[in-house]
């Protein structure tokens, strides 16, 4: 059985809590249990505490039949292996994954290296935002000549964006 936190190592610490007549189980590997400081698991909704709010429910309905449209991977497969099927799985299982990622990592958004291709898209998106704002301003000021030129620039940019992604 794999650790519910990192989904990588074998679970060696098994926690069971009965809360309002409902049983919750969390399985963890040695490293994760130490990291989470699990010693005396009393008085908490454990799964929520360790994996983020709502995680207990996620674990409960882990065997759901949701399927990735690209590779056919299911949530049950993920529960079993702790690995995903393809890059689209991150979208397919997005909601459930977010809690997991939050518990696993330092942040929830990537701040590191961008591939050149993505770099270009980010630049174009920034430019698009500036142009749209200027356009709205020009329209509000009834400066139609500028607005027309801005509209043409936006069209051009939309084209570039479509071809870059």
């Amino acid at each position, binding site marked *: 059985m794999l650790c519910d936190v*990192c*989904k*990588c*190592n*074998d679970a060696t610490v098994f926690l069971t809590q009965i809360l309002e007549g409902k049983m919750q189980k969390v399985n963890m590997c040695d*490293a994760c249990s*130490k*990291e989470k400081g699990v010693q005396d698991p009393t008085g908490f909704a454990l799964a929520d505490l360790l994996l983020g709010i709502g995680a207990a429910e996620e674990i409960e309905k882990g065997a759901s039949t949701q399927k990735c449209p*690209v*590779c056919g*991977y299911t949530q049950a*497969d993920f529960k079993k*292996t*702790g*690995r*995903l*099927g*393809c*890059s*689209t799985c*991150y979208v397919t299982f997005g909601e459930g*994954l977010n809690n*997991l*990622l939050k518990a*696993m*990592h*330092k*942040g*929830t*958004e*990537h*701040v*590191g*290296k*961008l*591939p*050149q*291709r*993505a770099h270009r*898209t*980010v630049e174009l998106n920034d430019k698009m935002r500036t142009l749209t704002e200027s356009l709205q301003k020009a329209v509000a000021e009834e400066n139609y000549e500028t607005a027309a030129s801005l509209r043409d620039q936006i069209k051009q940019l939309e084209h570039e964006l479509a071809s870059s992604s």
Partner: protein
Amino acid sequence: MKFSSVISTGGEWLRGEGPHHQIVISSRVRLARNLRNRSFPGWAKKAERTAILELIKPRVEELPEMQDSFSELLQDLSALEKQVLVERHLISREHAAKGVGSAVVMNRRQTLSIMVNEEDHLRMQSIRSGLQLKQAFKLVDKVDSALESKLEFAYDQRLGYLTACPTNVGTGMRASAMLHLPGLVLSELINQVIQAVSKIGLAVRGLYGEGTEAMGNLFQISNQTTLGEKEDEIISRLSKVIETIIEKEHDARQVLIQKKSNTLSDQIGRAYGVLTFAHAMTSKEALNLLSIIKLGVDLGAFPEDRRLPIDELFIDTQPAHLQKSSQQKLSAEERDHLRAQIIRDRLKVFPKPDISKLANESDNGSSFRASNNE
């Protein structure tokens, strides 16, 4: 380049150079990357895996860094050859279990090794001796940028590089250093260090990574998280922690010399005695004893020029290296016998430990520290 030349050339990181090389054996940085809209290797069917391999492998081989490289399909390597690569940390244990649809490409200097279709489509690793995480990252980052222009990697604006296991998503980077910490182990401070390190989001593991035992007082320390922090931030945070551990190790050694010099001399003497005269030795026992001899070299009980032969024994006495050098498959018993023989032969020319040198070090603590903190 043939497998036999991989074996005969030691690999640059084994030379024991680089900053803090007495304590930091090696620094490694690996990046995980995947192709867009393709199943990850663990889920892809054999045909898709092979197609992915055929897409990636030529791109890797044509890298300028991979001129005169060793490139092999996993199914064309024997179990023993794979194990040799694992013992040199050039492929992972997981990759060694792979067959059709996976490959490994590495440069002649064995500073760069790229696994195709391990857990991710690409696992690129750079390995250096001593504490050189920044330099290791620089190389692997350059290789990543070169490959990215020819292959379309799975990347998400919010989550960064997408990987098979959610623990690697974001930077896809794992930076790690292999530390030799006999001082902290002998003074029973190691658990304290391990606990402190795991509390700040770093992992401490045994010799061959995840789920392996610590042998020979060797510990791997690495970043645990990959999302929400920049690559260079992760590396400088890790380097700082490692520098603190190095300091603690030096402190522990100082205390041992000053307060427990009898125990220390006894340990070194016993290790020397057993290694010089034993006729059967498991690899675990060998590593643990060699570790003490290595400590002896660090502390001046053996001359400095004895360092390399000891470092080489760490690798040469590993099971697969042993069998490869003897050109045959051996039973565990035969291996233990051969291992003891190789060690005895190499220690023949080794002088007895000079314990008085140890005592001198304790009289002269400040210069000891300076010489070890180069």
